[in-house]
């Protein structure tokens, strides 16, 4: 073969091979860049900071009333979404009930592939086989499964690449959290505290699925926090679930996770002490899993107030000083701004009615009010076990420097009693009743994180579990408990648009992305995704 012809063949072969192996690569740098490319939504909160804030400005306060549904996607299965879809190159990657998952054309809502996990029939979980979403890096997707595994899927086909067991589902472990990819590791937490299990956060190699480290959210006897548990083996049943995705500070190489409540949930005498590191914020080295610092929001919690909310990272000026902070609206009803280098509380203020603590003292501990310990006769406390807020994502707008959260105004009568632990059975030692005269309601609240003061609120007629999304054009998107998705002016809280979805957003929030020159708002609710956009120009 002449030299020139050979060269053409080689060039063509290389080009063909490149075409065959090309994949929608997501690099660690892409994850660090977050919302820099607004056609993408690559991680649970949109970026590592947990802002759930988009730089997109096509949809504005002036034109948002023109938003209309472009397509809907129905899962065709029972059960509701609690997921945040990821967006890459015009394709949505979505997890659903019972660990079903889909790749969906973001232009049309049509399915490209579907993954179904064969789940065991003897599953145990407290709160439904839900899932909060994928993580992605390279050409891989990662999903935590309700039978307590972590799996890697091929982004192009949904085919299984590896399957790592996190813990034994038969004793009550489960996993619902959207994992977090940091560099070459995928970080995931375990749930199942209601069954008397011991929580942890794990990191796995994204390529091999081998475990790199484990951090127990319940301190063992040899740990610095071990003395906050009674002597004996109560720590092995100490709870501390992880079911909401954390955040990552690349400058400090620290990941931040909120941890679940101690177990058993309500019976104080079963676990005297502070019960570290439950109901806490933990700052962990991303490479080693070593704890750098922790802050416990609710020492010795007895009200089922998991601190599994999104820790939101920000840079604020407080009292004239620049501060690197983590903002946290907690299920216990207090909003916190914490120094994310030292773990010290800067601001702590209730954002809903709270009857259990007068305030957070200068030492960072709550100043408890009497009469709030559950017993066999019951004690009335606000908020209820659902909390002042819960798993629904908040949002932080760095332009207005406002923190937005769905607040729940609720109270409950809490009861507790002794209960014998039996592996695989629920171990909560108590329960609650809603007072008959209690009028619960929800609200979208805007909080100034430098003071904890309420800037504005928009009240709903019922309690909502919807997450919040903000955009740089000055919009807040949130849902009420009655099935409406709404848009608000982020500066003043004026309602500008609403659409009845037919089912409330439960733990889901909107995501937004740019595609073919149009900004889409994507909303999961019930078993449906709805994509909204402004009218197309002729």
């Amino acid at each position: 073969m002449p030299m020139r012809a050979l060269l053409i063949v080689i060039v063509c072969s290389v080009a063909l091979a490149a075409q065959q192996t090309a994949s929608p690569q997501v690099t660690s740098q892409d994850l660090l860049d977050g919302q820099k490319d607004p056609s993408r939504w690559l991680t649970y909160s949109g970026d590592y900071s947990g802002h759930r804030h988009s730089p997109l400005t096509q949809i504005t306060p002036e034109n948002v009333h023109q938003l209309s549904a472009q397509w809907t996607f129905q899962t065709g299965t029972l059960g509701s979404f609690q997921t945040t879809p990821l967006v890459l190159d015009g394709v949505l990657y979505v997890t659903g009930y019972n660990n079903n998952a889909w790749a969906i054309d973001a232009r049309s809502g049509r399915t490209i592939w579907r993954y179904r996990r064969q789940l065991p029939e003897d599953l145990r979980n407290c709160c439904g086989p839900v899932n909060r979403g994928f993580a992605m890096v390279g050409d891989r997707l990662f999903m935590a499964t309700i039978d307590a595994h972590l799996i890697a899927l091929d982004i192009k086909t949904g085919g299984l690449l590896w399957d790592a067991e996190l813990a034994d589902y038969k004793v009550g472990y489960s996993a619902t959290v959207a994992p977090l990819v940091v560099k070459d590791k995928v970080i995931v937490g375990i749930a199942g505290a209601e069954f008397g299990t011991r929580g942890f956060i794990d990191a796995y190699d994204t390529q091999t699925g081998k475990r790199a480290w484990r951090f127990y959210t319940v301190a063992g006897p040899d740990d610095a926090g071990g003395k906050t548990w009674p002597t004996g083996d109560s720590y092995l049943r100490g709870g501390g679930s992880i079911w909401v995705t954390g955040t990552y500070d690349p400058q400090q190489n620290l990941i931040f996770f909120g941890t679940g409540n101690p177990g058993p949930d309500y019976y104080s005498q079963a676990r005297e002490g502070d019960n570290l590191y439950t109901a806490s914020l933990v700052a962990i080295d991303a490479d080693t899993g070593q704890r750098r610092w922790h802050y416990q929001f609710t020492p010795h919690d007895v009200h089922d107030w998991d601190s599994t909310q999104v820790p939101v990272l920000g840079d604020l000026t407080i009292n004239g000083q620049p501060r690197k902070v983590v903002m946290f609206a907690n299920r216990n009803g207090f909003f916190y701004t914490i120094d994310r280098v030292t773990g010290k509380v800067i601001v702590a203020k209730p954002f809903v009615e709270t009857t259990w603590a007068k305030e957070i003292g200068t030492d960072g501990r709550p100043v408890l009010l009497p009469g709030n310990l559950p017993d066999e006769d019951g004690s009335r406390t606000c908020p209820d076990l659902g909390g002042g807020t819960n798993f629904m994502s908040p949002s932080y707008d760095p332009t207005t420097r406002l923190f937005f959260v769905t607040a729940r105004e609720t109270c409950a009568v809490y009861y507790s009693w002794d209960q014998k632990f039996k592996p695989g059975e629920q171990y909560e030692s108590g329960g609650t009743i809603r007072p008959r005269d209690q009028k619960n309601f929800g609200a979208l609240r805007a909080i100034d994180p430098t003071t904890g003061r309420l800037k504005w609120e928009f009240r709903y007629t019922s309690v909502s579990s919807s997450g919040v999304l903000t955009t740089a054009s000055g919009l807040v998107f949130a849902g009420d408990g009655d099935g409406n998705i709404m848009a608000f002016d982020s500066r003043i809280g004026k309602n500008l648009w609403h659409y009845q979805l037919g089912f409330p957003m439960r733990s889901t929030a909107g995501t937004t992305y740019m595609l073919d020159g149009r900004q889409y708002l994507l909303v999961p609710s019930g078993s449906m995704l709805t994509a909204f956009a402004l009218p197309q120009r002729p």
Partner: protein
Amino acid sequence: MTPTRSMMMVTLGCLVTGGLLLAQEQRSLTLPPGQNPHLGNPESIRSGMALYRFRCADCHGLDASGYRGPDLVAAVAGGATDERLFQTIRKGVPGTEMPPTEAPDNDLLLIIAYLHSVGTVTATERPTGNVENGAKLFSSQCASCHRVAGRGGRIGPDLTRVGIARSRTALVREIRTPSEFVAPNYETVTLVTKDGQRIRGAKKNEDVFSIQVMDTRERIQGFLKSNLQDVVYEKVSLMPEYGPGRLNDNDLNDLVGYLSTLRGADMAVR
């Protein structure tokens, strides 16, 4: 006792005990035949309550009136059969948060006995008044708003099964002082339209932007709040108070006696 007889008795004893244990450990897919031995037994109900608290209360509420899961008091009062309760507990509800269970049949029967004891009235509470007169009073005073077995008004709750759902004390309280607690779906509202028209009725649903009502003429309709001048939420029930001046104690007793007999109706077409 001869060795043979004692051996027989021991064998028989083992068989009986073994049989009981077997029954207690059985895991049937459907309700075991025969009467639930725990119904109405206070000790069983206490055991059922303990089981319920551990296994069910987190979702269905400590008082079984629903939290994340459905209201079981309403389900039982609404006529859910023991077979349905047993199968739902045993098999779970696929695709929902309700899991299946491998607990022994006996545990399920204890929980069912407990559920029957919560918020429902057993047939042992006999009516004391003149039921015939009570029925007449109902017809003249109540039937324009309340329905029984498909007949009567619809602005108030359907009372076809009220004898199971309410104790005598509760019935007396709800007749004498109906505003003390107004059930959801029956709260009183008055809507004021932009042209000043006032529409009074029972609120059926509401969100931030709309409200749905049944007005006092039983017309069901939804309104956009942006089209209304005002929505007035009233604390007083649509049902008038039947104090002693309106319904004397004897008539009240007869009416309650009649209501206690209302335990469901067969509506099947044959």
